[in-house]
């Protein structure tokens, strides 16, 4: 299996290529949010360096979200276009899981945190158990206080990871000790190898065209509209 993994869900961008279990190379950038100008050049230069042609790829893996809406769309659009035109498999991996899976050393609940503004977070709960990586609570958009209350009730050791976790230090320390917040920089940013590994294990999606980012939140205008209207799964896009 020749796998290409893409993560543009937050400021860090990773592009990783693997041949089965072997990592062939990785480009990781952490300098701008404008992945539009950096993603394709990174893909083509990595592929050229490791002597792979586009059609050699058999699986495309993408961090599907949550994260920055624009970033997610750049990664997902690129990934689904590549998978479709190269007739390769497509796998979407939770962007939160990528960071959580980097904490294999921790025995307890691993809580990746992405800032969702206005004291909200994107988060979920994960666990490494006997060498297997498990999701304990699904990814969601949630108020930090509500999330911390819920996690406290789980009565298990917790580790908050991700660069944004420290933004909520004040809130977290109301519920847990400061030691629960991971300060290890190498673990707090997403690593392309973690994404590639998860993408290797997951089942590919069945419908590449229908594959979408996991925004985990409706657009505000839609939320407001739904307060007074019934959606009924209507199709809003039509061919003209």
């Amino acid at each position, binding site marked *: 299996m020749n796998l290409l993994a893409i993560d543009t869900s937050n400021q860090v961008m990773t592009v990783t290529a693997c041949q089965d279990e072997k990592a062939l190379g990785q480009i990781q950038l952490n300098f701008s949010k*404008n992945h*539009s*100008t*950096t*993603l*394709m*050049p990174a*893909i*083509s230069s990595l592929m050229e360096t490791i002597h792979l042609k*586009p*059609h050699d790829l058999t699986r495309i893996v993408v961090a599907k979200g949550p994260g920055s*809406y*624009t970033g997610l*769309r*750049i990664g*997902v*659009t*690129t990934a*689904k*276009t*590549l998978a*479709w*035109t*190269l007739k390769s498999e497509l796998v979407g991996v939770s962007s939160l899981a990528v960071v959580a899976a980097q904490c294999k050393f921790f025995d307890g609940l691993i809580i990746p945190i992405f800032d969702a503004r206005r004291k909200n977070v994107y988060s979920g709960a994960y666990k490494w158990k006997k060498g297997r990586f498990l999701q304990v609570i699904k990814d969601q958009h949630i108020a930090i206080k509500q999330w911390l209350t819920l996690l406290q009730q789980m009565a298990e050791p917790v580790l908050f990871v991700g660069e944004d976790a420290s933004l909520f230090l004040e809130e977290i320390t109301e519920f847990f000790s400061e030691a629960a917040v991971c300060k290890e920089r190498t673990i707090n940013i997403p690593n392309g190898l973690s994404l590639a590994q998860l993408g290797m294990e997951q089942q590919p999606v069945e419908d*590449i*065209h*229908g594959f*979408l*980012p996991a*925004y985990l939140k409706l*657009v505000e*205008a*839609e939320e407001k*509209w739904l307060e007074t*209207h019934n959606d009924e799964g*209507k*199709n*809003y*896009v*039509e*061919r*003209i």
Partner: protein
Amino acid sequence: MSYPIKERALILAVESSCDETSVAVVENGRKILSNVVASQILSHKRFGGVVPEVASRHHVEQITICMETALIESGVSPKDLSAVAVTYGPGLVGALLIGISAAKAFAWANDLPLIPVDHMAGHIYAANFVTPLKFPSMALLVSGGHTELVYIETEGSYKIIGQTRDDAAGEAYDKVGRVLGLSYPSGKQLDEMAYLGQDTFHFPRAMIKEANFDFSFSGLKSSFINMVHNSEQRGEKLNPNDLAASFQQSVIEVLTVKTLHACQKYPVKQLIIAGGVAANQGLRAKMKHDFSEKLPETELIFPPINLCGDNGAMIGAAAFVEARKGHFAGGDLNAEPGSSFSEEF
């Protein structure tokens, strides 16, 4: 970079600058082999106008299926293509980025050159499907986002000689339509109502006497809204068809008079009327009438109605010109939401 020489120059063209995802296959800049347009109008109707984040989300849903359908319907396979073209601006940044990301990935995967196309040049080149463009030429671009007069001295050189200072003409149509309780977008319905009414309200013709080619539609919009609100307060109901006719008469008179002046100052062989508002029947009739009287030598070109709105085919047509100019982009192509194709003038 250059164009691989193939017998048929086939371009896959992608457009996603606003609320339509569209992909076309165009042969030699003049022949449409397929033109798939997925419209989001039903979605944005819910909000009374285009919500950019909603538009971007729909583009991701549609983009690859539109590309696949365009290829299937044209009977063209990726290896037959000469290039991929994509709109890079102007438009909504989040929306543009979907077409750009998909076009770049497709171009890289299939080893094809990438041609960046200006959205407004695309609207002009929709006329190329009617008749080959001759230069010098003038274009009036009227849509929900733009109202501008563009002088095209030679192929691929665009100079904006006049534009709106506030609202675009199509934007004024939508705002006025909302006051009359019409659903978005209301241009077509207003055009039909105007046909049935009379210009009884004599709304202002902004900037019509000024010696420049600029437009302004926000004053017209305000007087319309005031007229309706004041009558409502008096408990009167104004005839909606007459309101529509009076509004439309003001818009098309200003557009026609200014365009005519522009073509008198810059003699041209052709006048192209393009953009969503170019579908307006009232505008078409008035332009034809006034030009046949005052500038009968000028050839008027109205692209067919289905090519007036945003579509991939027009991007494919304009891309041939860009390719001839040697204008190609790399994998670092970015969206330019506020781009202007106009040269210094």
